[in-house]
């Protein structure tokens, strides 16, 4: 294949700078010892990282976000895998409608979902509860898991399952011993993508949290819009670090391109 020219490489370099500049700035600012946002920091230090530890609100929010991410991703996975089996394997009237419904949270503006959830949870008095939050998040992240599970199921050579049947395996055995292990990478990829999406989710959460159940992105957002101290940058740096770790793990496990494109690109 032809190589990229100099202009192309220059363009690409500038593009990379554009993509990482805001992250570099956030990380850089977080190492200041002064009380204001400056880059590069004139007096480097870990003052604002120590500040996180003396700020239990942020730690509580981070723990809640973790708990919420794990719960909602797990709920969504348990519901999405059987649905993906139905949509990916069976031909039945209503299949396309069902698939569109399950993917629709991607198309409805999140702010609309947020007000809908707020109205609904208020009426059944579940506003601000973890289970209410988790169920709402499960709806929002459902499409990610469905897409990756579907890709895994559709990409699976069906004759492998037929082979197991011809050797005498029952439907349950085929699922447990053959299908599930083979779609596991896709399902895990979907779970992780869903977990990160839930962990980072702001727009829906900001409507349905209450002061005692504040997630990390909401806490951060409120802090940013109200004050301008470098604490937000040290919290952000911690979040970036956490995400990068997950990202490298996913890239090793599944391939970031496959995860994000959402189809088997072998």
């Amino acid at each position, binding site marked *: *294949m*032809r190589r*990229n020219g100099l202009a*192309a490489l220059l*363009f*690409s370099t500038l*593009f*990379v700078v*554009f*993509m*990482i*500049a*805001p*992250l*570099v*700035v*956030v990380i850089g600012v977080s190492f200041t010892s002064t009380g204001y946002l400056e880059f590069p920091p004139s007096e480097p230090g870990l003052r604002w990282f120590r500040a996180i530890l003396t700020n239990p609100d942020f730690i509580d929010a981070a723990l809640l976000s973790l708990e919420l991410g794990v719960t909602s991703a797990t709920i969504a996975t*348990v519901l999405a895998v*059987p*649905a993906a*089996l*139905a949509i990916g394997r*069976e031909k*039945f009237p209503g299949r396309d409608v*069902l698939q569109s419904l*399950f993917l629709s949270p991607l*198309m409805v*503006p*999140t*702010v*609309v*979902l947020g007000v*809908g*959830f707020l*109205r609904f949870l208020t*009426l059944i008095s579940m506003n601000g509860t973890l289970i209410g939050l988790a*169920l*709402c998040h*499960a709806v929002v992240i*459902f499409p990610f898991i469905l897409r990756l599970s579907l890709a895994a199921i559709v990409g699976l050579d069906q004759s492998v399952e037929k082979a197991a049947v011809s050797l005498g395996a029952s439907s349950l055995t085929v699922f447990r011993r053959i299908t599930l292990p083979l779609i596991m990478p896709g399902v895990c990829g979907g779970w992780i993508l869903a977990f*990160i999406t839930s962990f*980072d989710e702001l*727009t829906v959460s*900001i*409507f349905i949290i209450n002061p005692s159940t504040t997630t990390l*992105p909401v806490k*951060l957002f409120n802090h940013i819009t109200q004050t301008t101290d470098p604490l937000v*940058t040290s919290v*952000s740096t911690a*979040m*970036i670090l956490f*995400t990068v770790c*997950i*990202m490298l793990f996913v*890239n090793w496990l599944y391939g*970031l*391109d496959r995860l*994000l*494109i959402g189809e088997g*690109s072998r």
Partner: protein
Amino acid sequence: MNRQSAAKPWLLSAPALTLFLALLLTPLVMTFVLSFNSFNFYGGIKNTHDFGNYLDVLSDSFFYEIFARTFLIALATTVVCVILGVPEAYIMFRMKPFWRSTLFLVILGPLLISVVVRTLGWQILLGNKGLINSGLMNIGLISRPFRMMYSSPGVVIAMTHVMIPFMILAVWASLQRQDPATEQAAESLGAGPLTVFFRVVLPQVIPGILSGSLLVFSMSASAFATPAIIGGRRLKVASTTVYDEFMGTLNWPLGAAIAVILLVSVLIIMLAWNRLMERRYSGAFG
């Protein structure tokens, strides 16, 4: 394959369907109903059913301005994403596997990092005393800072950063689908690199660009965090207005009406766009 197969797909999807009926369709219907209720500061929400909120929104130039701004920002973001994202995707596609996957991590990785964190970075960069302005003043290119915070161009810049990975992914997917031999064929017939890009590659990735644009446009039109932080209180868009009505003035019915208008206009644009794409590309590309 056998008799009980008709019920099987429905049994498998029943749990998910239950969740969606309870937590997606019900809330959306309730929001729709809420948008027809009325509100006053003393009595709260009244269970009336009229078009009062819609009339309020549609007869007030304040709201027109907000919706116009929302869709203009979304349009500008989409255009910038196409102009920058398509060439970048193609350049990445032509790189050696090592650089390709490294760039993939760097460019698409931010997709997984919280929008709030990324927007915070832009807030630091775009401020009057921010990195871009002080840099430009230091080298003497400008004497007074550009006002980028609390301005639409500032929102477009930050939003481009948030949305462009989606454009690259969409174009990437269609680049992968194209037969690499078509580029070699064009070269063997004497086409230069630019001709190959514009005459052979670009036409083949147009479906990817169109679907990427649709995604970027609809997500930009309903984005919340970036316009809320970069735009601030003064530069309102539809989603931040809904938030203010719900959490600030507590006029839920009016907020619901704005939300419904946003939802309906986004859906109409998506459907129209899809129809256009299908008509244009249904036969030619798989």
